[in-house]
């Protein structure tokens, strides 16, 4: 009965054009009261603890830096350099975007951070070079998830502390599926963009673009160089990219006047302000499901149907896709890894190989709606409707499923880097 009331409230408020954050806050608050033997106060508490987390720190920094760079001219100048280099190759800039994300993933352990850090520069670049919006959006959202397959990876750390699988081993194994995913994204880019118009190579244009864009090129150089040489962490790099962007745009390029900064800051804050409440409401729902023991019950119930390896894979992967769609991936792994790892072992899977299956699967959760942080952030940051973003990732979800299938079928892919392939 109450379920219908909740659905009715949701539909009614949507018809009344109430925004999603407020609609969901009421619905989840009522779930607290009706189903979780709890109260609205705990929705507010979950709200607080969602924002009270270090992992989110780089989000406002990369968003702010991104808006500054695209309002000023860092982005445009960098794009000119990349176009000059990749112009002669069909799909060249797309390939460059994939490789940049792979490179950044090797230092960042998070998905949305990778998407933001690379996307703020590469998304406008792809659009202005004539790539379709759909491809560019989808690539940014799905390429960001490389951050959690290519080591280091926050999901692997969480998997490791939730089971007895060595985080170090997973960090080695992740390269197999990670590079497969990179290859798959490159192949799709070439296939799709083989007819994108190319420009002949011009040494003169490249030189000019380089001279013009030297300060822009220094940006990734400083960031990657600083992180790789051990001077700062990825979180700190986000603040450094912001500081650098401000200094270059205000003092060197001077395309941005100081009095615009306030407006840009406010714009960035509005972007963050529309993301955080959605994360908070989703997080609150996760906690309710967890406390009510729903995931445990579902795994226990469905494991009765398992009598062979392929049935295990079917059950495990369906559950994980569902979990990824409905939960944030960090919570999903902490809840499901300890429940599933023993099942994997019982049916003869190498623990590290099984861990890779779980992680490559949960990577989908970042881009499978409704609770998909990459899509939510992309909606806001790349100024697209949720429907458009969802549609844009569809072909990429297929690619990720293929990579998942390969990861399942070819254990050597995960184990060869451990020396036991």
């Amino acid at each position: 009965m109450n379920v219908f009331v909740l659905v009715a409230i949701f539909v009614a408020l949507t018809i009344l054009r109430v925004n999603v954050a407020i609609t969901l806050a009421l619905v989840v608050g009522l779930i607290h009261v009706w189903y979780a033997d709890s109260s609205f106060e705990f929705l507010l508490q979950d709200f607080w603890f969602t924002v009270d987390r270090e992992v989110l720190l780089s989000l406002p920094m990369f968003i702010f830096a991104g808006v500054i760079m695209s309002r000023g001219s860092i982005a445009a100048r960098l794009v000119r350099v990349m176009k000059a280099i990749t112009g002669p190759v069909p799909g060249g800039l797309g390939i460059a975007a994939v490789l940049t994300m792979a490179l950044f993933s090797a230092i960042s352990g998070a998905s949305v951070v990778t998407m933001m850090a690379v996307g703020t520069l590469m998304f406008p670049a792809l659009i202005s070079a004539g790539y379709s919006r759909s491809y560019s959006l989808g690539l940014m959202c799905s390429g960001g998830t490389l951050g959690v397959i290519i080591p280091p990876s926050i999901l692997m750390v969480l998997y490791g502390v939730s089971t007895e699988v060595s985080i170090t081993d997973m960090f080695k194994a992740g390269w197999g599926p990670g590079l497969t995913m990179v290859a798959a994204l490159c192949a799709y880019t070439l296939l799709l963009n083989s007819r994108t118009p190319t420009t002949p190579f011009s040494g003169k244009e490249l030189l000019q673009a380089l001279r013009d864009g030297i300060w822009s090129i220094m940006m990734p150089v400083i960031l990657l160089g600083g992180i790789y040489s051990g001077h700062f962490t990825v979180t700190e790099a986000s603040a450094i990219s912001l500081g650098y962007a401000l200094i270059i745009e205000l003092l060197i390029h001077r395309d941005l006047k100081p009095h615009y900064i306030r407006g840009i800051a406010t714009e960035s804050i509005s972007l963050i302000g529309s993301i955080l409440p959605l994360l908070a409401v989703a997080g609150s729902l996760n906690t309710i499901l967890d406390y009510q023991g729903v995931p445990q019950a579902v795994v226990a119930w469905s494991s009765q149907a398992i009598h062979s390896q392929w049935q295990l894979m079917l059950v495990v992967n369906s559950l994980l896709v569902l979990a990824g769609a409905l939960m944030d991936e960090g919570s999903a792994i902490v809840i499901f890894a300890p429940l599933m790892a023993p099942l994997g072992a019982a049916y003869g899977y190498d623990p590290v190989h099984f861990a890779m299956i779980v992680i490559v699967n949960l990577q989908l959760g970042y881009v499978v709606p409704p609770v998909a942080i990459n899509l939510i952030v992309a909606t806001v940051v790349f100024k697209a409707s949720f429907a458009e973003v969802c549609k844009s990732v569809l072909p990429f979800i297929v690619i990720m499923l293929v990579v998942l299938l390969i990861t399942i079928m070819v254990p050597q892919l995960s184990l060869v880097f451990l020396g036991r392939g």
Partner: protein
Amino acid sequence: MNVARQYLQILWVLESLIASIALFIIAGLLLADVVGREFFNHGLFGALRGAVYAMAISGLLGFGLCVASNSHVRISALDGIVPISLRPIVTRLGDIASALICALLAYWAIRFVAGTITQNEMALSLGMPVWPFQMVLPWMFLSATSRYVVFAIWPQLRPEEPAVAA
């Protein structure tokens, strides 16, 4: 109505100013920590915590700014159900509903912060209580409530929706 318009303006300036300062504080704290430890052999203890609270303040005030600019994510799939001629009424009812929900959330936010004050919960690495930072929760919902009330009474003060909606 002019008073209401002024009120919205002042609220906007105040919130965007505080939120912008908080945004720069995040960057400042993180940078000071890096510079301190790389050049002076001693970082800034508590910088990370301070930055997290600054992010909470900045991001949650952003909620109110989104209300002000009508730029929250909204599901538009059901827009066609209501004839366009009725849209002003629907929007107004929506604003009333939003005001009521935000008021409800504000009430519980106050209860939540009151609990923290009774507990005297501390942010250890900063050596100060947590509740002043948590005040952003009641603030964001109260300010949103007041905005929706104004929109419901004077719909002409409601900004147009930006072109993109979900």
